[in-house]
């Protein structure tokens, strides 16, 4: 299966502590076929697991959001991504992490997509048939400040 995917994270260079920390996630299909992507445990469904590594000036910030045990996915847990285009989602990091002021907050998506299906094959896959894919991408760096800088 010629699956080629990469992710990217986009956001501001600086956020205000206590306000939402909105970050965009894109998962690009860089292969030549349509792909069905299981949204589970990816930012495409919001934050529902320890899917990120978050450090604040080098120190790990523990995850405080939900950890969800799933059964089998439904069809609409998948999203179709055409070659060259991306699945896009935005999330508020502050909903799942107790962030604090820091010069360099580093956000890294761990990169695991739990099931990727080439278009034409039947979806959904039962959980035990899932084929996970590790997707490359760059971490996002930003500041978190107590008051907005002028």
């Amino acid at each position, binding site marked *: 299966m010629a699956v080629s995917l990469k992710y990217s994270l986009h956001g501001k260079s600086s956020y205000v502590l206590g306000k939402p920390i909105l970050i965009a996630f894109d998962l690009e299909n860089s292969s030549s076929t349509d792909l069905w992507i299981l949204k589970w445990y990816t930012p495409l469904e919001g934050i529902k697991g*320890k899917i990120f590594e978050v450090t604040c000036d080098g120190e790990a910030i523990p995850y405080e959001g939900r950890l969800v045990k799933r059964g089998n996915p439904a069809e609409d847990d998948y999203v179709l991504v055409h070659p060259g285009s991306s699945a896009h989602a935005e999330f508020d990091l502050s909903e799942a992490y107790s962030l604090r002021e820091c010069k360099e907050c580093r956000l890294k998506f761990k990169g695991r997509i739990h099931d990727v299906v080439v278009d034409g094959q039947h979806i959904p896959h039962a*959980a035990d048939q899932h084929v996970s894919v590790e997707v490359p991408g760059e971490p996002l760096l930003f500041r978190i400040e107590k008051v907005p800088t002028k």
Partner: protein
Amino acid sequence: MASKDSNLDLFVGLEFSKRNYKASDPQKLDFSITNESNKDIQVLKWHTPLEGLKSDMFRVETAGERAVYLGPIYKRGAPTEDDYITLKPGETVGAKVDLANAYDINRPGTQNVKYKTEHLHAGAEEPKTLTKSLMKGKVAPAVTVKSNTATCTLVESRQPKTLGGVEVRLARKLSSEKGLPKAKAEKTSFSSCSQSRQTDLATALTKAVQIAAAAKSAVFNASKCAQYSAPRYREWFGKFKQSRYDAVKNHYDKIHDALANKDITFFCDCADGNTYAYVYPTKPYEIHLCGAFWNAPMMGTDSKAGTLVHEMSHFNAVAGTDDHVYGQSGCRNLANSNPDDAVDNADSHEYFAENTPVLSMAGSPGSIIKVTDFWRSMPSGFAGSFDAALNGGGPFSGKCYFFKGDKYIRYDWANDRADSGYPKSIAANWKNLPAGFKSNFDAAINGQGPFSGKCYFFKGDKYIRYDWGADRADTGYPKPIAGNWRDLPSGFKDKFDAAINGGGPFAGKLYFFKGDSYIRYDWQTDRTDPGYPKKTADFWSCMPPGFTGDFEAALEGDKQFKGRGYFFKGTNYIRYSWAEDRAEE
């Protein structure tokens, strides 16, 4: 039986129906409570046989070992008035219970049985008042209670009970006080849960405690051999590594403790049909149940009980697990490809605890191999049944020698084959051997530490010393083994079967084997270590059947085989890994 103690309110009497029991017998115990005071006393029937054997209310000991309770465990709210019984002054109530049914009593011998009086709740007050104090966590009775110890003898072994396919035995390491399932008037709270869901959850929690206890028992009681090779551990957590194994032990200890003892709040507030449950890792012990949970079976794969194990493992205060992968096949792959993640994965813990399909937690014994299958070019007559084996020292390093009768052969470790031109006569080639020490050795060993450069040959109750550098036996020998090898325990002063130097974590020690036992000698202190002899089968892991004693020769591996110990018997041998401390497959 009645006590004359004037301060006594209640006397709990225990008496077995007979003195001796056979394995197939029920062990009926007569339990009675007598009101020794001059006032009415209310006794809560909970944790007494008056309501049956429904909690771990007895201490059953055989030779200092506690039998594990395997009966039901009930999670309860507040007792009602019906749960109390009124005892008038002088009145006695009683009930019979079968201890063999609820406790894993399998060892023959004398049993001492005590009732845990601290679990008895009673008082002169009204039931309502007593309930209030119970709910405040005051379990100890407000009255003085005494009890006797009942004694009986199990005259033969009984089949041990199993939990989830694992022999529970006396899980004493874990059970010391808090380990195994025990009754606790813990409060389980529910939010938005219907009565039937509350009932379901209470059952699921009871089962979760059981499978968590069985999982804990499995990892805590596994022999070293089992830790390395048990299919159940391998399946879900992958290749053995001490730090990972310790983490898993710690996890089940905490998961079990949390399920059994912590105040859990269940939220029935999530309808999603594809989701079983969720938690927030920083919010112990709040568990949110979703649609898929209610359709799950009580036990087995992805069951209600297993889901509670899974969720409990997530809390940072418990095991802090993640969801790296889910599903059985995902977890099996993870165990293979990334065991570090497997021991941090919630579903892996769930599946190990559910143990469906059932996998064994028993170890696989090491392999018995024919000498001539792997020791190459062994000359005729030297296919086995050696008297002794020894590595060469000094100018003869890289070689090893096998002795048999009055002949010996030489083996080259690097070439991994026997040198040609052998066997040769011992007497003609090992110089200056004293009379009586030219054949039929019992064992041979190289000296270490202060005794490096020497080797020793043992025969009967004497030994000689050979110097590798001078290539001749030292004068002044043979000497008696007893006295010159210090602190040898009785029975270990002559006629050794084999001797081998320890490697890896056991370097600097020398082991003498005889029959089914061995002793350990320390080269530095030049003394036998205290605490020996021990049974070889008990401390040498994964020794296959037939290879737990009566060895004929033993040899340390060298060159590419360093770190291994070889034990020979007849025409076979086994290989022992010092680093893994087990016989290898």
